[in-house]
């Protein structure tokens, strides 16, 4: 499967996120704070692509996708912006749906692979029961046929149908994650959100699981958002890549382009600091720490750590500017608005 090279038309968009802001609004014993975990993110995902979301811990990437699938509960709240899905022509704002319609969409059109394979399956229910709970009502077939269908699905993903009779704790971490992928895909949804699906897996297993994920995506031709902090995973699994820093999207483009020609200083640092086998070039790390999302610095949030920072960066937040086809960057230095800056 190769990534679509041409700029995709709006009509093919499955997900459209516009200027989304989601804050953790907490009040604890007199300390009231807004944690601006997602602060003005705009992105879209096209049909049949895997969109990668990268960023380091606490950059807001998990919050972003939680907000996208409306899996939020207080203190997290959407402050501004919209999330629109388009499943085969029926566009909808996920925050405008009532409970019943939302339940109708879930799993049938929009499914989810969660971080932390240990806990996503009900520990006291066998895997089979989870399949029944999650998918039975969408399939619309009597139980025996449904179970046969599930077994077929597992077989297609080269999983032993015997796992259906197991409890989650009886499976290895990799196997649990595979089961979760099968569970998320059994209804052949239009859109799958995968949050750190391979974190905490060993490298060998990680590769297998990623392969399975791509395999599933290829088979059912759904769109997918894949969130992970591991650039290596993105490089190998995603079509397009968005990089987040301190609650904002700072760079976005085709994965190969972003990794090979990062524009944003942060992205560049992230990519070039990674050692590779066979490469003994001295590499430098980045000093400092990401800012607190409760009290982010003014202007570009990266400026305190940025080697290129200038006066403007300290004052105002840079807008996302398209520097190449489908490649957008938010940086006063590398992508000043109104003109393509030199890479």
């Amino acid at each position, binding site marked *: 499967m190769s990534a679509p090279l041409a700029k995709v038309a709006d009509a093919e968009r499955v997900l459209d996120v516009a200027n989304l802001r989601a804050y953790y609004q907490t009040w604890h014993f007199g300390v009231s704070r807004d944690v601006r975990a997602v602060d003005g993110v705009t992105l879209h995902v096209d049909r049949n692509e895997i969109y990668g979301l990268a960023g380091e*811990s606490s950059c807001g990437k998990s919050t972003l996708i939680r907000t996208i699938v409306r899996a939020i509960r207080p203190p997290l709240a959407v402050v501004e912006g919209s999330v629109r899905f388009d499943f085969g022509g029926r566009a909808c704002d996920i925050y405008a749906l009532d409970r019943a319609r939302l339940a109708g969409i879930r799993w049938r059109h929009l499914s989810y692979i969660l971080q932390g394979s240990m806990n996503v399956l009900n520990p006291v229910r066998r895997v089979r029961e989870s399949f029944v709970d999650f998918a039975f009502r969408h399939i619309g077939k009597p139980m025996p046929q449904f179970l046969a269908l599930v077994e077929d699905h597992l077989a297609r993903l080269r999983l032993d149908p015997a796992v259906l009779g197991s409890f989650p704790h009886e499976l290895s971490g990799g196997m649990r994650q595979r089961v979760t992928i099968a569970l998320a895909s059994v209804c052949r949804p239009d859109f799958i959100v995968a949050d750190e699906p391979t974190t905490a897996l060993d490298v*060998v297993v990680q590769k297998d699981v990623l392969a399975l994920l791509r395999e599933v995506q290829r088979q059912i031709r759904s769109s997918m958002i894949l969130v992970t902090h591991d650039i290596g995973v993105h*490089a190998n699994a995603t079509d397009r890549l968005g990089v987040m820093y301190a609650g904002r999207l700072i760079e976005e483009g085709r*994965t190969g382009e972003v*990794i090979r020609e990062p524009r944003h200083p942060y992205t560049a640092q992230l990519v070039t*600091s990674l*050692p*590779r*086998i066979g490469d003994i070039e001295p590499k430098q*790390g980045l000093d400092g720490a990401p800012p607190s999302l409760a009290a982010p610095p003014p202007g570009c949030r990266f400026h305190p750590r940025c080697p290129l920072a200038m006066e403007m960066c300290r004052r105002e937040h840079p807008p996302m500017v398209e520097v190449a086809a489908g490649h957008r960057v938010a940086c006063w230095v590398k992508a000043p608005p109104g003109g393509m800056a030199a890479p």
Partner: protein
Amino acid sequence: MSALLDIDRVGMTYVSGTLLARRVVRAVDDLSLRLEAGRPEIVAIIGESGSGKTTLARMILNLATPTDGVIRFRGTDVAKIRSNHARADFMRQVQPIFQNPFEAFNPLKRVDRYLFMSARRLADARGAEVDALADRALHQVGLSLAELRGRFPHELSGGQLQRAAIARALISAPKLIVADEPVSMVDASLRMSIVNLFRSLRDELHVSIVYITHDLATAYYISDRVLIMQRGRAVESGAAREVLANPQHPYSRLLKASVLSPEDAGKPTIAANT
């Protein structure tokens, strides 16, 4: 040349369960490794979870006792170090670095407390010496006491904390540092500064480092020697660059093949290993 650390055919067997249903887990099996004194080096021990590398680290640090074989530090059987005095002496020379910098300090206590404590207890510093020692150690890792004094862990970044932890380990001028996955919980952008620090510790302070990791890339980047472990056994070892550039053992090859490199970006052609 005498050995700094001599791991001689060490094995570790855990027994779980009760008398009636023993389950024997062979965490480490017949493993040998020798670090020479006077030739500081970084030895990477590579393996995935369950390969026994953390158990090995615990045995070197005398937090666990091997069931077979002997670990000698400068000729002394580590497992026989029992008295408080001997333990303190051992800790002066061998220090650990832990995996999670956020966990390595008590969140309710100030970070400098541990530096001062080490200075007093392990380096026998008194009065102004204590501050001086702490400050010197912090400078060795690119920090200063002024930055750190009175700060709580949550006020510092993971990178700073990990450096502080390393500085603390350095206070007693140890000969050996055992670092168990020291960068796996550190953000990628901060990771290299820590890794580079290890290199400078070896080169400038002549500290030998046992670097335990599952990350082949950083191992390749800084270590002199590697030892690849699988299910408690050493499957391959040798000079780092040689082994990692051209692994011989099937498991080593599999490991190497599984590494997802950013190089592949734009060609998402990932395939399962099996």
